[in-house]
């Protein structure tokens, strides 16, 4: 292929709208643009002047699929701005609800979006109604896995999307513990199906290897999506409050979302499950590790397709983590922590399903929001996605256009990007520059 313009107008089987433009001249990729096309909603501007109590549920509307991640990150940022310290019980309940989110959200990506790539078909809608068909088995596994994840989140947080019960300082209503034995039984019931999925994604033959840095939260005591320091491959450790200082936003004029460069390394960086397993696999639940040792040995990995395997492993981890908490937690009657409003600044950093998520909240002494900022995983991964695609196209220009398009979509899909998340906010620094 000497000279060509390759355009994918709408990348499918992802969350939101994105496209790809590639210009090839004389057997060289001279231009490649990953285009985030969702229109911005300027939600970080919209919350200014609003009372802080209204903000987490509003910002959960940044994203339909990981609304719980934005809800919890916003709650954390506002709690810190107010000096509110949630109870140990609240943190355990948040962790339970979050385990449910990870189980459901990862399963949606793996089985509804990626599985057709694994099977060499267009869509799960094309999987035959044949119980002996492997695709049929995996798809029906996913229905059970997603349902159990949703039940877990609903039991704790009230709903899987825009959950009503988590609030600043705790929960508006505590879960009914009589549901827990049945939940444990259901979680135990899907383990075998999840293990089948791990094996399937382990065997996915695709490879796209390129060196980049990896960033994730790390809690030295346990595998924890909600609490820790941001670490990278070379061992840099940054407190949540300092994370923003290490990022430089990059103007991508054709994209509706900024990219980011991590100032401590010259490489581009990746956030997401692959980072978490690369950096934290020693902290995974012991029962999970006992059952998946052979699959874990591929990590640390620079193969972007192993993000799929890493997500499948995280599903099992979340199941085992939830089983442990549900089996041991003794609920006491608690009301949300409430304190008089103060002027303050708070930062929340958590691991959303797609990677490290940052919320910053500033309030005045009446408890009104004066400034808000959000940095989402997909914006951080943009540069990495483009660099992967450039490498892929440069190495495969002998292939026909249809194959190139299909493989490019598969690489993008492996990142599990989310355009709704990437286009919610407004980066003021860019405008000033």
């Amino acid at each position, binding site marked *: 292929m000497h000279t060509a313009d390759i355009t994918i107008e*709408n990348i*499918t*089987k*992802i*969350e*939101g*709208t994105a496209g790809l433009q590639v210009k090839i001249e004389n057997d060289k990729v001279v231009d490649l643009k990953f285009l985030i096309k*969702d*229109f*911005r*909603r*300027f*939600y970080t*501007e*919209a919350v*200014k002047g609003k009372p802080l109590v209204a903000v987490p549920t*509003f910002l959960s*509307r*940044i*994203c*339909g*699929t990981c*609304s719980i991640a934005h809800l919890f990150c916003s709650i954390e940022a506002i709690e810190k701005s107010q000096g509110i310290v949630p109870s140990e019980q609240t943190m355990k309940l948040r962790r339970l609800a979050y385990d449910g989110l990870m189980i*459901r959200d990862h399963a*949606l990506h793996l089985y*509804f*979006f990626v599985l057709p790539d694994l099977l060499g078909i*267009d*869509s*799960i*809608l094309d999987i035959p*109604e044949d119980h002996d068909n492997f695709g049929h088995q995996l798809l029906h596994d*996913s*229905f*059970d896995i*997603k*349902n159990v994840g*949703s039940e877990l989140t609903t039991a704790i947080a009230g709903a*899987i*999307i*825009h959950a009503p019960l988590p609030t600043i300082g705790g929960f508006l209503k505590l879960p009914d513990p009589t549901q827990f034995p049945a939940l444990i039984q259901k979680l135990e019931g899907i383990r075998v199906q999840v293990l089948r999925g791990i094996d399937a994604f382990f065997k996915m033959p695709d490879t796209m290897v390129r060196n980049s840095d990896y960033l994730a939260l790390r809690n030295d005591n346990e595998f924890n999506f909600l609490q820790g320091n941001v670490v990278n491959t070379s061992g840099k450790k940054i407190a949540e409050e300092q994370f923003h200082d290490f990022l430089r936003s990059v103007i991508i*004029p054709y994209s*509706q979302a900024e990219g980011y460069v991590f100032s401590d390394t010259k490489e581009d960086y990746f956030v997401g499950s692959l980072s978490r397993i690369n950096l934290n696999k020693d902290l995974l639940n012991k029962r999970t590790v006992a059952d998946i040792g052979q699959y874990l040995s591929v990590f640390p990995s620079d193969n972007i397709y192993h993000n799929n395997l890493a997500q499948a492993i995280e599903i099992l981890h979340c199941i085992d983590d939830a089983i442990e908490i549900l089996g041991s937690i003794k609920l006491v009657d608690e009301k949300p922590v409430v304190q008089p409003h103060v002027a303050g600044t708070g930062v929340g950093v958590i691991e959303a399903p797609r990677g490290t998520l940052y919320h910053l909240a500033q309030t005045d002494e009446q408890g009104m929001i004066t400034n808000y900022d959000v940095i989402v995983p997909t914006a951080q991964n943009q540069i990495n996605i483009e660099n992967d695609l450039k490498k892929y196209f440069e190495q495969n220009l002998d292939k026909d256009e249809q194959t190139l398009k299909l493989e490019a*979509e598969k690489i993008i899909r492996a990142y599990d990007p989310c355009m*709704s998340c990437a286009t919610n906010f*407004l980066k*003021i620094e*860019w*405008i000033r520059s």
Partner: protein
Amino acid sequence: MDTNLKLKIGWFSFTCCEDSTILLTELLNDHLEEWKKVIDFKHFKALKTNNSIEGLDVAFVEGAISSESQAEELKKIRDNCKYLVAIGACACTGQPSSSRNNFATDEINFKTAFYMCHFDYSKDVKKIDQFVKVDDYVNGCPMNKDVFFSTMDKYLKMFKIIS
């Protein structure tokens, strides 16, 4: 009743968090098998690459309209479907995606103006019935699933797919 007959539907998303799409993917856990027998998903970008908007019986549209290009796309969908259903709060009411319509201060307008000049933003974000005729509304954030079920059922019966 022709058992091979299927309701030809399209599912479309504009400016929103796509929570109704996510809810629909959850409903598929329990309903995909039965729906595949009676529904032809001709356009469903979250689930398939080979999509078509031609000859739709019903188009389900979530999200608000942020730009002229989105408005044109919406009109094209309307021209290609017999019935159109607004899905979720942003499509039905504009909110919360239309929050930017309320940004009043000059300072904020200056900031948003940069983006609005560089991309195809309309001055205001609008709900979909400001552009096209809407036959049914499934409100909610995300959509109310019981209303969605009854709406789907209504069209399956109207097109004599089920009795």
